[in-house]
């Protein structure tokens, strides 16, 4: 038997691992693309992070 020849089991596992790897890579690409879209559309990308942030407070209505 040649040294290092793959068992049939490993061939099957390789297919599964490759599939999962591709799914994860596609997921990363999707999240990246989605981030670009959200940022370029001007969606609010910041929120309160434990401390109040004055720039996020809506401007008070000016009374007539």
């Amino acid at each position, binding site marked *: 038997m040649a040294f290092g020849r793959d*068992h*049939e*089991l490993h061939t*099957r*596992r390789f*297919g*599964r691992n*490759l*599939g*999962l790897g591709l799914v994860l890579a596609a997921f990363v690409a*999707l999240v990246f*693309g*989605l981030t670009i*879209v959200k940022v370029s*559309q001007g969606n609010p990308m910041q929120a309160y992070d434990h401390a109040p942030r004055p720039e996020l407070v809506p401007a008070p209505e000016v009374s007539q």
Partner: protein
Amino acid sequence: MTDLTALDQSPEAEFGDYVALLKPRVMSLVVFTALVGLLVAPVQVHPLVAFTSILFIALGGGASGALNMWYDADIDRIMKRTQGRPVPAGKIAAGDALGLGLALSGISVVMLGLAANWFAAGFLAFTIFFYAVVYTMWLKRSTPQNIVIGGAAGAFPPMIGWAVATGGISAESVLMFALIFMWTPPHFWALALFMKEDYSNAGVPMLTVTHGRKVTREHIFGYTLALAPLAMGLGLTSIGGPIYMAAAAVLNVGFIRGAWRIRARSEEAAVADGYAAEKAFFRYSLAYLFLHFGALLAEAALRPYGLGGW
């Protein structure tokens, strides 16, 4: 015995088996109807946001399919139609199906919320819950009305697609829901008529098993009659138009005729020709739904050119 020979004796799941766990054929219906719901909505969605939303709605549908296969492994083993599924075939352990179903449910709901809005995400979560818990765990084995009420799970996707675009619910999305909801019982009862041994062997209380085949034939006709005005009513809303109305009129006349043929037949006549009318009605029902939603899509696609819509 070496470790490798031991592993040879237990079939190891391949990537395709995990895909099969997500019921890709059901997923295709979910993708199509959700996509139509999203595209006919009056609010434009960025193509990547739309793609991501549809992808995760489909994944949510797939997750509920995996949960269904985990819970139903015992009856899937008995029914011929479902014996080849990964869990009853011994390729994937039932616990793994449960794990995958739960994980994908969480991922799909969170990702839909981040990509679109949290109303649509909540709607998807409710749909997964409805299919996995209300239909699979509760109704399927306890009442002949299982597919009537459980059919709601399959009818939600166009409403979720609409919610992705608009962030809410409207008469249009409710009527798209109603179209699939009322279509589901005659579609599955026709299947139950010609797959008769399967459901009774597994002890699933399909209408054919509990109330007999004659009653089932009458129910198919009744639901088809009730479906027609809903299908036509959808054409009168803002997403309808002359193309949809013409298609719906032709399709519903054909559907009612097919249902009447089934109602008028005796069981002996059906056995004699190998359930030809029932099988033809089942195939027609698939085209019926596809063409209704296809016509809605055509109306939306032609609207910018001044041709679609009212």
